[in-house]
């Protein structure tokens, strides 16, 4: 037991082996969704696509807590900064900083609402995580003078809402099947 305790003390920043691996794996999913364009769902708004690239950060936050969620978001942000084709995201302040908070806020929302039941907690965490992304990115875009505030409001409402719906559906589907939560619907499990 003493040995085990010493091993724990050797760690810095509260990252366990589990935290490292889950962060890496889910960050890979985020990058993969972006690189293959699988993570873009065409929606009828000016921006054209709702992205689900931030969903791994939400899922990581829910599964392993705010540190893991933050790391996944940070890697997603770095990727979107390095490989951006939209001028807005070629700015490190707009691309990287907001993304770190997606998983952190989602994790806090999940922990705060967990008592209401798994289903509700995941839904609220997905809404909070997605809204964090949309609101922070657009706020920083306005602060950095890429977009006028009026345009940011329109983008936020028309783009943010479909994105929240899509993120909730995918987070629920993935986490309910991973955690094997009984969702009350009789469905074949493949």
């Amino acid at each position, binding site marked *: 037991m003493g040995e085990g305790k010493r091993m724990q003390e050797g760690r810095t920043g509260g990252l366990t082996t589990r935290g490292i691996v889950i962060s890496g794996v889910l960050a890979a999913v985020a990058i993969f969704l972006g*690189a293959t364009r699988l993570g873009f769902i065409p929606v009828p708004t000016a921006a054209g696509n709702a992205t689900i690239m931030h969903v791994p950060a939400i899922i990581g936050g829910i599964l392993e807590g705010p540190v893991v969620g933050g790391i996944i978001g940070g890697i997603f942000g770095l990727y979107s900064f390095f490989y951006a084709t939209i001028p807005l995201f070629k700015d490190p302040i707009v691309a990287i900083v907001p993304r770190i908070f997606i998983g952190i806020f989602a994790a806090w929302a999940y922990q705060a609402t967990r008592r209401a039941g798994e289903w509700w907690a995941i839904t609220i965490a997905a809404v909070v995580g997605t809204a964090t992304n949309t609101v922070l990115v657009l706020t920083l875009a306005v602060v950095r003078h890429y977009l*006028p505030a009026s345009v940011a409001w329109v983008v936020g409402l028309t783009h943010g809402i479909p994105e929240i719906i899509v993120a909730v559906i995918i987070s629920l589907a993935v986490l309910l099947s991973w955690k094997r939560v009984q969702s009350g619907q009789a469905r074949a499990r*493949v």
Partner: protein
Amino acid sequence: MNEFELLRNVTIGQYLPTGSYLHRLDPRAKIIAATLVIGAASFTPSLLGNACLLAACVGLVWAGRIPLGYALRGLIPAAPFIVILAILQLLFFGRNYDPASPVIFQWGWIVVTSAVARLVVISAARFVELFIVTSVLTLSTQTTELAHGIESLLRPFRRLRVPSHEMALVVTIAVRFIPLLALEAERLLKAQASRGGRVVGGRWKFLARTRQLLPVLVPLFTFALKRGEELIVAMEARAYTGGEGRTSYTLLRGSPADWLAPIAALAFLVFMLFAPFPF
């Protein structure tokens, strides 16, 4: 069958070995220099400064012995977005941005002031500059080098409980997992296609489209998490305990010549931020 070949489209960590000075630079020096130049590009407020930056970027491409056309190729798909952003800025900023600036164009409710016109040019130039700097960095540095460099640079911050080694390992795991995910996704898409499953539905039916993506996305996440669990067991079985007292297979040794690049970049940044450019 092209739609199933996901692996080919994943272009993270594209590396162009030309053996130039930039390629041979110590990754730590290169990361610091790139960060400083990115800072210069992000915060230079003047037109002339941005012109200098663009020239410096061309110089970087030349120093990396990267064909200019190759480095700029990625700008073509970005061109429509640059134009859209410029139009949005021209149409909607109006007098809200710097009301004191003189109006240079007015037609109905559309007002363009010279400050907005300047802003449009600087936004576009900044995008091109950052695009070139990040391209040169990724084309001249392997992803593992980047991870080692970041780990080494963050090491002094371990005292502040920044998990430098762990962060580098996260990046390495992510990079190693992407090809596995691509193979698995190919398998899933083919399995769906062979059962007659197709991703259809236009823009207005995005909910239907999301539902159709679920049979691919849910197993993909589950696959990733399952492989993750296996990796955790494998690492713990080998008594992995994190970065404390761990030595590295790759040792980074910088020569004085390596540190010329960040010094030059720092001088450039200071010059860009404080030089009295007339416009």
